[in-house]
């Protein structure tokens, strides 16, 4: 359980905002912090990592106090049991992929662990490559592999997929989910991509101007968005939920979610990730695969 109750004044391009967060995160959650740039979401992640210091408040992780301004406690980043994947991956350019992982190792005797993780992340072939000779997707995988070397309890991800193309992004999203489950992590992702939020997380904190505006499952948080009134739109299927005899299909259209009720016959050949045409005929929306 992570308890965060902090306050920090931020100077953003929109002027001064106060980041004020008071939330608890359950172990094993995959939480997304969703919001526009300048809303304070990355700062919140950095505060958890100890890279930024709040003006006041507390951070308690599994009954261990990481930060408490009233008692003057501030555990250093080095002693917080976390992994952090940076937006630019922050691989050390002077070290090979293997050396990047080795650098994270506390006890050099455990070098078999490097091989295990390289193998698991399908990086064995790249082990002697330098970071600037590999692709963006590979860099991201190395960055995740490197954090796993230290058996973190919490994995912090700062828009790690934003620089990748759609196919690669989708593949790496699956890998992140696998790692999250396999290592029993509590993951906190910063993102402004709604389909990513639906795919990865079970809980979303929506943040605007430093304040949490909604908190809940992706379905509940994004269902308040304006429904599109157009007759014909195209979008991407992001979830299909069975509700009694019907199916509720969530479709992402221009960063907005459209909910469509459908019967089994209509969605038989439609899968999550498919692009679909949503059109209205006699007030009943019909889905057509495109």
């Amino acid at each position, binding site marked *: 359980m992570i308890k965060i109750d902090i306050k920090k004044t931020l100077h953003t391009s929109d002027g001064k905002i106060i980041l004020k967060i008071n939330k608890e995160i359950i172990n094993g959650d995959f939480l997304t912090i969703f919001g526009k740039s300048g809303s304070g979401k990355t700062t919140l992640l950095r505060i958890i*990592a100890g*890279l930024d210091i709040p003006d006041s408040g507390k951070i308690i992780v599994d009954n261990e106090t990481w930060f408490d301004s009233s008692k003057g406690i501030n555990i*250093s*980043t*080095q*002693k917080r049991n*976390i*992994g*952090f994947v*940076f*937006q*630019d991956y*922050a691989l*050390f*350019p*002077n070290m090979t992929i293997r050396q990047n992982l080795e*650098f*994270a190792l*506390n006890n050099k005797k455990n070098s078999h662990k490097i091989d295990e993780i390289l193998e698991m992340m399908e990086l064995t072939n790249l082990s002697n490559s330098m970071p*600037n000779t590999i692709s963006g997707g590979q860099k991201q995988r190395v960055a995740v592999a*490197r*954090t796993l*070397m*230290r058996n973190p309890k919490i994995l912090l991800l700062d828009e790690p997929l934003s620089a990748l193309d759609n196919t690669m992004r989708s593949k790496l999203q699956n890998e992140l989910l696998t790692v999250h489950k396999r290592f029993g992590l509590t993951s906190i992702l910063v993102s402004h991509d709604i389909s990513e939020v639906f795919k990865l997380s079970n809980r979303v904190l929506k943040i605007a101007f430093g304040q949490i505006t909604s908190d809940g499952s992706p379905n509940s948080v994004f269902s308040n968005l304006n429904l599109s009134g157009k007759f014909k739109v195209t979008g991407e299927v992001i979830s299909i939920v069975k509700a009694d005899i019907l199916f509720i299909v969530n479709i992402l259209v221009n960063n907005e979610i459209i909910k469509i009720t459908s019967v089994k016959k209509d969605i038989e050949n439609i899968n999550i990730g498919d692009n679909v045409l949503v059109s209205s005929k006699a007030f009943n929306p019909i889905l057509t695969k495109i």
Partner: protein
Amino acid sequence: MESDFLQTMTLTFKLALITTLILLPIGIGLGYYLSQTKSKLKPVVEAFVSMPLVLPPSVLGFYLLIAFSPKNEFGIWLESAFDIRLVFSFHGLVIASIIFSLPFMVHPIQSGFSALSRSLKEASYILGRSTIQTVWYVLLPNIKSSLLTASVITFAHTVGEFGVVLMIGGNIAGETKVASIAIYDEVEALNYGVANQYALTLFIITFTILLAVYVINKRGIRSEF
């Protein structure tokens, strides 16, 4: 005459080498501090570091001469406590050169550190590494070309220094007489041939050193990308 020439050239390069070796760790420390600090004192420190760039060398030489004078309290204390006399001695030259070449060492290193992504340092902290380990294993290896540039420019600048050396060192053969002073000396004595020997040697050596640096840095950049 030949041995005089060799003696002077050796002294010149010995001074430049010692100055560079002492300044390198100082430059790394100060450059790192200046690239990271958010302190209000930063502009003050930066101004002090940069002053030798704009100050006439004779001003610095003059104050050092006063400070190190054996008639002064500081000079007396140095002489009684450490048996060191800094005026008109090689030690004094080294200290004056260190102060005078400071910006040439600090500036390239500071900009090297500043150009590195902040996340490199932070990633190392997250992997549990201390500041010293981070600087040594992560940051310094990634600013090698800045370190090389800083060292070579410091070396070359110390070789070429004239005003401070003249003020604080005087012109004692084998002790404080360096090439730049020797040229002036020989011209005064109308020995243009010897002056030219010194001048040409300095010209060729400094050109070769600088050329080597630019070639090495260019290669380094190519292999990195």
